[in-house]
């Protein structure tokens, strides 16, 4: 387990409400921020809050911004085993996926394959492309909700231009066999986009080992500020047309034409969020110091603990894959009695927030399609997601709270 002393780095954990500290179990949505990240960002605002020197100003402060942001790009690239030129800053992972969807030259009749458990961010951009004749097909899961490589193989036709899959599901923490998926896709001549929003913050991810051609993630889920990253494998940048253009994307322009900069700059239009980039580097530093193997082990231990203890309560039904060997960092569940919903997930979350300061997510977690296909779209599930600052004691409080909710709702 990671040392509990690291909690002291997170100022939000020092707060109290009704004499109780927060139990933050919603890191799959947004992680808390350590002092080290906050300080790094404040340093930009306090000391050199200027434009970058690249293509803009060339003074004292601008040089410091250039140095700090170049370091940030190198740091974040190294964090995923990429080179700095392969890393594009975006607003978030959603924008990163949209960049590929809008920019990749997909033609009428070509196919994009996804899994059946994609976040709306990796579903809606492809549904939009259907309007111009690009087809979107879904690889159905096996009965046990794990990814079906045989089903993928069957769907891999010459028309499949892109396989776009989530690495770790925000629904239940299930890790798809992305390396195997990428091998099959590449054998078919298809490109591979990986939505790594729930994996990069929680486990060691190496884009080469994974076989990703494109990989998207959000820094705000990995202890950093709101910022996204798109990895574009070297050599593929020419396959993408920049879709947001303007200042900073071109080296020169005339009234009737422009010369674009090389990647990644050609994809980063307008003045950037320099403080966020600097914060991203600090977040990567913080996680590297902890060790990503240790981060993963810590979360797996918490997941095992919660799955085991919640599993002992009558009325808890896990949603998705509830096997700590296959899924970690997230536990999704419903409270049921005789096969029927006993307490609405949003009521569970509200009760635990009010009584225990336990912060959870309830609903469809932006994976509406998955819940709708299973007939529980109107209610969804309760989701607890863990990170480096969570403890076994917090997991026990969650279980205690759920047990109390069950007792109350059963009239006990």
């Amino acid at each position, binding site marked *: 387990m990671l040392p509990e002393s690291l909690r002291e780095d997170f100022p939000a954990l020092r707060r109290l409400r009704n004499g109780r500290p927060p139990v933050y179990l919603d890191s799959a949505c947004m992680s808390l921020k350590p002092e080290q990240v906050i300080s790094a960002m404040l340093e930009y605002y306090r000391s050199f809050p200027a434009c970058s020197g690249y293509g803009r100003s060339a003074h004292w402060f601008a040089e410091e911004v250039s140095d700090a942001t170049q370091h940030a790009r190198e740091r974040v690239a190294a964090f995923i085993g990429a080179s700095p030129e392969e890393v594009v800053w975006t607003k978030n992972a959603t924008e990163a996926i949209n960049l590929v969807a809008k920019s990749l030259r997909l033609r009428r009749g070509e196919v994009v394959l996804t899994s059946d458990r994609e976040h709306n961010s990796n579903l809606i951009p492809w549904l939009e492309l259907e309007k111009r004749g690009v087809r979107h097909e879904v690889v159905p899961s096996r009965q046990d909700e794990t990814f079906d490589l045989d089903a993928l193989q069957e769907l891999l036709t010459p028309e499949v231009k892109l396989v776009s899959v989530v690495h770790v599901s925000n629904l239940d923490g299930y890790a798809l066999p992305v390396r195997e998926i990428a091998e099959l896709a590449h054998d078919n001549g298809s490109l591979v986009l990986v939505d790594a929003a729930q994996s990069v913050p929680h486990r060691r991810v190496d884009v080469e080992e994974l076989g990703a051609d494109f990989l998207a993630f959000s820094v705000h889920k990995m202890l950093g500020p709101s910022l996204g990253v798109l990895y574009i494998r070297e050599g593929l940048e020419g396959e993408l047309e920049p879709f947001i253009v303007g200042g900073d994307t071109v080296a020169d322009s005339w009234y009737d034409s422009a010369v674009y900069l090389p990647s990644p700059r050609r994809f980063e239009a307008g003045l950037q969020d320099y403080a966020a980039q600097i914060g991203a580097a600090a977040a990567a530093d913080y996680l590297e110091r902890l060790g990503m193997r240790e981060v993963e082990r810590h979360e797996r231990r918490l997941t095992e603990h919660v799955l085991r203890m919640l599993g002992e309560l009558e009325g808890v039904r896990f949603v998705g894959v509830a096997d700590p060997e296959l899924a970690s960092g997230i536990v999704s569940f419903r409270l049921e009695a005789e096969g029927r919903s*006993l307490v609405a997930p949003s*009521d569970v979350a509200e*009760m635990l927030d009010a009584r225990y300061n336990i912060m959870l997510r309830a609903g469809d977690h932006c994976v509406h399609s998955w819940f709708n296909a299973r007939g529980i779209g*109107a209610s969804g599930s309760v989701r607890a997601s863990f990170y480096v600052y969570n403890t076994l004691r917090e997991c026990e409080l969650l279980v205690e709270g759920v047990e109390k909710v069950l007792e109350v709702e059963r009239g006990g």
Partner: protein
Amino acid sequence: MDEKKALLLEILRELGSAKLARIQEVVEAKRMAQPEKYSALTGCNLHELLAEMAEEGLVEKQVPEWGAPVYRAKL
């Protein structure tokens, strides 16, 4: 009245009083059985809709000290 709210009110009248879990279950069943009529009741934010309806005086929301709220149609 907003179509979603009208449909939800109709369901609440049928149920008398109910907790959200039961309302969601009925909404789900109706969406499956009559998608053309109930497709407006989409998504999983019925609790937000009910809270809004309670503020507007369309629905009575009883919140126990510890437990899930109970909803009842007022009109």
